[in-house]
């Protein structure tokens, strides 16, 4: 496998507001290589966004952050970079697409020039070449009549078109890693399918690394090669998309998948529910964070934090943080 372009190890992120402190990410590691898509799956508050974007200096506003661990972009330590160096890295090495296109596009500027200026700044193109590049990026992102759209303001485009324009903007700097934070959540079903297909095409053609941050199992199934399931700031399970989505081991992953009906299966699969709600991370207990909602819980779960154990070998190991299931089902581990 290719060497990772973005690798994070033993990341711990504490967030502080005047009234609460929260351990948003608790010892998570991940990496992504050129040409592969890693999906980071979790519900709101699971820490999936801060885990991915935190090391790049993108943090929620108005909170103090304490971040430990290592994070490398192309082998270079990025946690020691100055704010201006980080900013340059975000613009060039990392391309980010958000749920809300208007958080990336300047409403006061025309679409095309915003793209062109990125291409000039980060891809080192001349003004004329940058304009051409911008038009071709718009066309590539599936925007009809790109010459015309070049001179439009963001408010003149529909939601799906804006999402495409933001993807074009993220690509203008020719990034090595594309981070997509809930890229389709706000979109309608038919537009969602278009955007997922677009991300996949770009990834195949450019061979870039993609990190997909989402709670949408359908989007994961369409795009991901590998999957990390995050629960309350800890990795519950990781492996290939096939391993995690079709043979899940962790009770949370199993519950999450059972709660999503399979629209494509012949019979109604039913929606099973996970009881309870995700824990309040300001008052975390020791032990497994899923323990209070778990139907396999044992006394030790409340006191001992489970470590990730390898339950499947291969190019990508399948790892699960639940000794209870592993013991109960006699699953062989390889650690």
């Amino acid at each position: 496998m290719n060497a990772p372009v973005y690798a994070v190890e033993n990341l711990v992120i504490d967030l502080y507001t005047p009234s609460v402190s929260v351990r948003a990410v608790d010892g998570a590691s991940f990496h992504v290589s050129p040409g592969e898509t890693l999906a980071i799956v979790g519900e709101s508050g699971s820490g999936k966004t801060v885990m991915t974007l935190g090391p790049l200096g993108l943090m929620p506003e108005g909170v103090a952050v304490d971040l430990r661990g290592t994070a490398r972009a192309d082998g270079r330590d990025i946690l020691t970079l100055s704010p201006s160096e980080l900013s340059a890295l975000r613009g060039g090495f990392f391309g980010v697409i958000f749920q809300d296109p208007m958080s990336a596009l300047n409403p006061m500027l025309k679409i095309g020039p915003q793209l062109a200026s990125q291409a000039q700044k980060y891809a080192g193109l001349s003004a004329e070449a940058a304009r051409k590049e911008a038009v071709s990026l718009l066309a590539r992102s599936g925007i009809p009549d790109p010459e015309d759209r070049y001179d439009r303001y963001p408010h003149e485009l529909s939601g799906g078109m804006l999402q495409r324009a933001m993807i074009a903007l993220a690509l203008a700097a020719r990034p090595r890693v594309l981070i997509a934070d809930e890229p389709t959540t706000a979109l309608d079903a038919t537009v969602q399918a278009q955007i997922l297909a677009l991300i996949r095409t770009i990834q195949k053609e450019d061979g870039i690394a993609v990190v997909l941050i989402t709670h949408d199992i359908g989007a994961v199934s369409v795009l991901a090669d590998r999957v990390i399931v995050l629960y309350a700031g800890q990795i519950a399970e990781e492996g290939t998309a096939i391993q995690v989505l079709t043979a899940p081991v962790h009770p949370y992953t199993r519950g999450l998948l059972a709660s999503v009906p399979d629209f494509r299966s012949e019979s109604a699969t039913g929606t099973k529910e996970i009881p309870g709600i995700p824990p309040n991370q300001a008052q975390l207990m020791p032990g497994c964070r899923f323990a209070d909602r778990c139907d396999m819980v044992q006394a030790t779960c409340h006191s001992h934090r489970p470590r990730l154990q390898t339950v499947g070998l291969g190019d990508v190991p399948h790892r699960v943080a639940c000794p209870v299931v592993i013991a109960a089902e006699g699953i062989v581990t390889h650690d």
Partner: protein
Amino acid sequence: MTDVKQADPPAIEAQGLKVHFQTAAGLVRAVDGVDLTIPKGAFHGIVGESGCGKTTLARAIIGLQHATEGTVQINGRDRADWQKQDRKGFARAVQFIFQDPLGSMSRRQTVGQTLEEPLLIHSIGNASERKQRLAELLDLVALPATVLDRIPRSLSGGQRQRVSIARALALNPSLLICDEPLSALDVSVRAQIVNLFARLQAQLGLTIVIVAHDLAIVREVCSEVTVMYLGRVAEQGVTKPVFADPAHPYTQALLSAVPSPDPRIEAPRPRILLAGDPPSPRNPPPGCRFSTRCPVVEPQCRVTEPQLRPVAHSGQAACHLAAAESHAVI
């Protein structure tokens, strides 16, 4: 005549319903000629993409939104007359659940006050009977009695939605209309609320209309479905046959867009990718509203607007290429 038993009127019968808004940018035809009949005891899903008018339709049905044209009968009575003559009686029969439970509750009232308010307004029971009713309501939506003293903000999203459902049930309505009641919830909590709706429907014999965009959930719980596109009904019928053999090309594309959570099913699956976004309801295209994106469009589609007619799954579709014998497949 006396021997002929009057058929039970449907829970909802809308005819020629239109809701137009005058805006600075022009006339928005949010709902533009909808006929809809929902029998008593149905669990009906209204689906479609943003701007298709599904929420406006739901609001117009109960008069939260002024209809520009058309009539709505609820339980056989003209809705507008009913509300004029007996507003409280109407409120006892029909309840609405909003997408954002927090926005539809007072921030200062406790859950107990929130649930008791409809009983007080309708002068139902004395203090101890009301207390008894509150306990029944909490039981119905599976909330612990401890939530009574809490304020909505301190509850989780799923608990808040349970409270708004309990409040809607307080007056024993026969019809519940819900606007995207799951959208604001976490994935793992969504299933809890879906199952709650299904259980309430069976237990209380309610008619439930749910506006949704999650087609997988509609397939799980709704007995019938209406698919809307740009202010009109594209297709309607019994959910299972409609989803198994959709007659309208838009329904086919919409269903194709839903991915399977199983990558082994998803990877080899051919998908229908439509070009472009839905047009603006400000100026819908002439003829069939889907004609600008339809992969099997024919010249007549751009001229004549298709009307709903019977199709193979024994529901109805508004497509020139769809008839009882056959329909286009894209």
